[in-house]
């Protein structure tokens, strides 16, 4: 079957060969339970702790500061709800932004129902939150600031280090969802001043169902699931040793190759952006021009429904997305674009292209060949879903 051109790496990525090899090796040779005392258990424990150390090294953390989880969503839940429950005696106020991933927004909404108060900070036209807005929102009872590192729909990179500085000065715990940023831009937890940071393996050519939460030493967290004493009592359950090893390999490779992959992605993105702007009229780029991930491009095509473009591209073998995968299929225009002040009609006329390491210039050229024709045909048809 023809694989087509995959431009949806912000949704997920294929597992790369080296990661699969690492996974296979542990799967086939190290089956022990890392909690067991015998040699089989010790072997597993060794792989587990090595993996933890390798992940920690990539983000400038200590090994014991890494909690393995099932992925980004669980990490966000553990960070946000875990902090809220741990610090509820101290305060009940949480600061976040309007453009977070649903994993964060829905955690906050659930906490609101439990009596916590949440401030949803706005963003500017580039999808960026300003550090002074964070500053102004802090109250005596603020216990957590959670701001995503890079936005999954627009790629905009938030001023995490500045916010981290503010949080530190004010003594507020700071969490960032770095699921999209890890492996694409340098990430160092000390330079960023974060206390909690969510990561996911499948966005960086690792398997699904594995990720991690960085927890700075001394940060109080309440577990969400009860069981044994695994993962510092924060995340019980027999460790997913093969998954952890695969995650470690994935983040290691992503970190090692960051300079070259960034160059590759930036080049492709520039070609794609330039090509679209050259060949198609009435397009608008959504997101930050400078502070942006090298691999995400969000574009609105005035007068055309994003979903209609997506279908057309897919039938021609090009996979892109409208908004994030989690909100695709929703009629509502993207909450991220709306928060940026993009008109609802333009928000519904948007596509997200997210590039990856296997994409080539030929593939980008191919997209540039087919896209203008699709857009102009849909514009001729006066696509009502976008016009309505």
């Amino acid at each position, binding site marked *: 079957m023809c694989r087509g051109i995959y431009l949806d790496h912000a949704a997920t990525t294929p597992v790369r060969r080296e990661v699969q090899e690492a996974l296979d090796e542990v799967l086939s040779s190290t089956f022990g339970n890392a909690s067991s005392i015998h040699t089989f258990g010790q072997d597993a424990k060794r792989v587990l702790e090595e993996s933890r150390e390798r992940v920690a090294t990539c983000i400038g953390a200590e090994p014991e500061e890494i909690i393995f989880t099932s992925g980004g969503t669980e990490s966000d839940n553990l960070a946000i709800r875990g902090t809220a429950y741990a610090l509820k005696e101290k305060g009940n106020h949480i600061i976040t932004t309007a453009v977070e991933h649903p994993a964060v927004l829905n955690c906050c909404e659930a906490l609101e129902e439990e009596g916590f108060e949440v401030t949803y900070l706005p963003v500017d036209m580039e999808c960026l939150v300003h550090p002074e807005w964070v500053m102004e929102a802090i109250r005596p009872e603020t216990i957590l600031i959670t701001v995503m590192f890079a936005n999954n729909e627009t790629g905009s990179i938030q001023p995490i280090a500045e916010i981290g500085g503010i949080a530190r000065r004010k003594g507020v715990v700071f969490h960032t969802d770095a699921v999209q940023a890890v492996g694409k831009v340098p990430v160092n937890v000390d330079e960023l001043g974060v206390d909690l940071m969510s990561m996911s393996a499948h966005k960086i050519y690792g398997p699904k169902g594995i990720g991690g939460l960085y927890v700075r030493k001394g940060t109080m967290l309440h577990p969400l699931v009860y069981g044994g004493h695994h993962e510092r009592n924060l995340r019980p359950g027999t460790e997913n040793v093969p998954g952890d090893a695969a995650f470690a390999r994935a983040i290691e490779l992503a970190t090692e190759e960051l300079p070259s992959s960034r160059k590759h992605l930036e080049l492709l993105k520039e070609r794609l952006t330039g090509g679209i702007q050259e060949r198609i009229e009435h397009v608008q780029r959504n997101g930050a021009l400078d502070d942006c991930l090298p691999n995400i491009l969000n574009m609105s095509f005035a007068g055309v429904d994003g*979903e*209609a473009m997506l*279908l057309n591209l*897919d039938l021609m073998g090009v996979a892109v997305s409208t908004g994030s995968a989690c909100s695709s299929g929703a009629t509502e225009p993207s909450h991220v674009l709306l928060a940026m002040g993009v008109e609802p009609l333009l928000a519904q006329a948007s596509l997200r292209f997210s590039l990856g390491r296997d994409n080539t210039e030929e593939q980008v050229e191919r997209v540039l060949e087919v896209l203008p024709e699709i857009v102009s045909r*849909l514009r001729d*048809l006066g*696509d*009502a*879903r976008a016009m*309505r």
Partner: protein
Amino acid sequence: MEIPDSSNRQRPRWKGSGVFLVHRVVVAMSGGVDSSVAAAVLKEAGSEVVGIGLKLVDSNKTTGAANSCCGIDAMGDARRVAEKLDIPFYVLDFKDVFRTTVIEYFISSYLNGETPNPCIPCNEVIKFEELLRVAKGIRAEYLATGHYARVSREGTGRYLLRKGTDDSKDQSYFLYSLSQEQLSQTLFPVGEMSKRETRELAARLGLRVHDKPESQDICFVEDGDYSSYISKHAGSRIRPGPILDESGAVIGSHRGLSHYTIGQRRGLGVSSSEPMYVVDIDAHANSITVAAAGRLRRQKRILLERMNYVAVAKPEEPIGALARTRYRKPEVNATLSPLDGDRAFVEFHSPREPTAPGQSVVLYNGDAVIGGGVVRRTTDDQ
């Protein structure tokens, strides 16, 4: 009126005609056996088939019966069929437009004392306008559905909408409001099959949905309980009011107009020596009028609005036709007299029990739909 012999020369056929489609066709796939077989038949005939499922109601809530076309499991069934047929399949979210064009119409119509038929605007707007536009957007030449009806092109260039070959399953009643342009882009692959043939074909093709039960009632109303659905969604707009007898005397009170339809006998809550039936619903006065069976007014003539003509352009003179006043109800002889604008009178050759305002009346010549319209409430019933 004369309707020429149908001729399918200009249109693709798929039943033993030897003419194979090579076009891209979008099939509206509900997960039911009919649309699944429609997709299968077109695929077998050599078309490039793209399946599209429509999300019409919020699937987070358990609305929609399991066997309805917008139920939760339906999209999963449709996806499995598409996989089996090896065709691309997409689910599109039409909740917004469905709510504004079908559900709100349904509710406001009931609140106006009418008895609406939501399947008709659903076909007209959701499938043959919105989905058809999506189909054209992906360069499909046709939109196909699993309706039991047929479309054919006449020598005159006019498109006829005809009954499905299986008279017991014929669904042309729900499709009378399609325009010529819509019909020209529409295919009904199971229109020439019987339901039994459809199920057999589905079984032969190994489609698991072959023995799926028929969808029932109105897809977005759970358990077919319209009045509580409307109460839930219209809330304070439903007000109790008086029940009147034919003389206008108050003999009871009703729970809100949406609980009643013309001809209804049960649940009136008025005590009387003989069974009473609803004979009129007056939204302005928020009242309903009831009468005993023996004194039920027979209806000789009804006024239709929003007329759509299919087999003919709007006629200058009255024409004879067979009128169907409800899905599956036997047709009766009538005369159709077009009025100004999109209104028309239908005169029954023998008076009959009243048809509720909001219902559609479809006029046939043989198996061809002449046209149809929506019954308007009149006070001049004979």
